[in-house]
């Protein structure tokens, strides 16, 4: 890839919209090109600035109250009609709800098809996570928050995600949290946390359980915990379920190291307040 080519990919690269292969090509170029690296760094700064500014604006309390009040007023006549005449409007409403319930059974079928270009015989989700590990894990500039303070990182993620993230309790020398960013897996929100352990970088993704049929790996039960494992191009992937969330760890180390890390999350993990 040359600089001119990379320019066309920059936005999609930073928006997590490239396929794994395209990501790898961009990343390979950035390793050697300081000019393009500066461009990417500046673009990240622009996005961070927009995001940080947006987070300062919250809907005022009186707006929420006003909306709830107006909704209460608007729905009152409909309710009395429902008790009396059962109007066609109410019938439509009920039909809509029934159809809505039926449609919920179809949830989760679309997201898997959004994944692009993964190699054969490898779960597309693993390929996506390995690709992102290579991007976010290599350069701290790609993190949105650099901090080894797990309480700070948990609070930062809590403000940005719809779900809580359980962080592993690290105890050994040589292991530390590096930082975090908001990412996506299969087009769903995901927390991305970067750790260093014995000189290796470990990416930890946390996301809502979703398209499991695209996430099949080799099952391995350790200390009563069901893990799934996979490898791709020298990278190891280990994932497990914890309540309603998936946790997945990626590194260029061995599977067993990641399982040990996974046990730290499952057994020693805690929700920061």
């Amino acid at each position, binding site marked *: 890839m040359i600089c*001119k080519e990379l320019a066309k990919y920059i936005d999609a690269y930073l928006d997590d919209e490239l396929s794994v292969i395209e990501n790898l090509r961009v990343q390979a170029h950035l390793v050697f090109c300081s000019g393009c690296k500066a461009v990417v760094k500046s673009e990240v700064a622009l996005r961070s600035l927009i995001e940080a500014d947006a987070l300062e604006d919250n809907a005022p309390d009186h707006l929420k109250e006003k909306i709830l009040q107006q909704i209460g007023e608007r729905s009152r006549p409909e309710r009395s009609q429902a008790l009396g005449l059962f109007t066609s409007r109410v019938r439509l409403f009920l039909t809509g709800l029934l159809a809505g319930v039926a449609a919920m059974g179809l949830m989760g079928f679309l997201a898997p098809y959004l994944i692009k270009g993964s190699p054969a015989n490898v779960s597309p989700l693993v390929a996506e996570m390995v690709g992102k590990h290579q991007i976010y894990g290599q350069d701290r500039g790609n993190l949105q928050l650099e901090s080894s303070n797990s309480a700070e990182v948990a609070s930062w993620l809590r403000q940005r995600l719809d779900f809580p993230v359980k962080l592993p309790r690290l105890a050994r020398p040589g292991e530390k949290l590096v930082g975090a960013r908001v990412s996506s897996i299969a087009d769903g929100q995901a927390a991305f946390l970067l750790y260093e352990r014995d000189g290796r970088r470990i990416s930890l993704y946390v996301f809502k359980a979703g398209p499991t049929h695209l996430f099949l790996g080799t099952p391995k039960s350790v200390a009563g915990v069901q893990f799934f494992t996979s490898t791709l191009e020298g990278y190891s992937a280990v994932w497990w379920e914890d309540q309603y969330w998936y946790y997945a760890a990626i590194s260029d180390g061995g599977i067993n190291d990641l399982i040990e890390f996974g046990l730290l999350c499952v057994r020693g993990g805690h929700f920061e307040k």
Partner: protein
Amino acid sequence: MEDPHKRFETYVLPYLDLLYRAAIRLAGQEADAEDLVQESCLRAFAAIDRLRDVESCKAWLFKILRTTYLRQWGEDQYRQRVVGVENLESTLADMTQVLQDPYESDPLYAHVVGVEVRQAISALPFPYREAVVLADVVRFTYREMVQILEVPLGTVMSRLYRGRRMLRAALRDYASQGHVKQRAV
């Protein structure tokens, strides 16, 4: 059968802050943003029984927000600009212009304050403004933006590209003004 109030509180209210953040950048003024969010929420409530796939609730809500904005605040403005915008897009400079941006001399926005970021976004022409807001404030994927904006993927990408470059240029101006002010103090 789920009560519409409960559905509204479960699926719509959690997005209130996000709706407001987008609205304030689309409408420009806090009072207009509140009106826009309020009207959008009322429309969402009226149509809550038609929300079937709750996973796509966020995109559904922002589509309502956008439609409400266009109907009440910006439709004429948007229509008048569509021709101009499409022309602009067709004559977009080569995307490699990003490499000619003066990144080296970027003051890295150290002197830009939050209100200037919001002002710079609000000053973008609407098609670029909404693309930047949906991608960088609300964090929609390109695919979701295609659904919300009802334009092809290429158009989403080119508007986003153009919008971000315009925003960068505007912020660079703010940054250098701030830099000058600080030096003068």
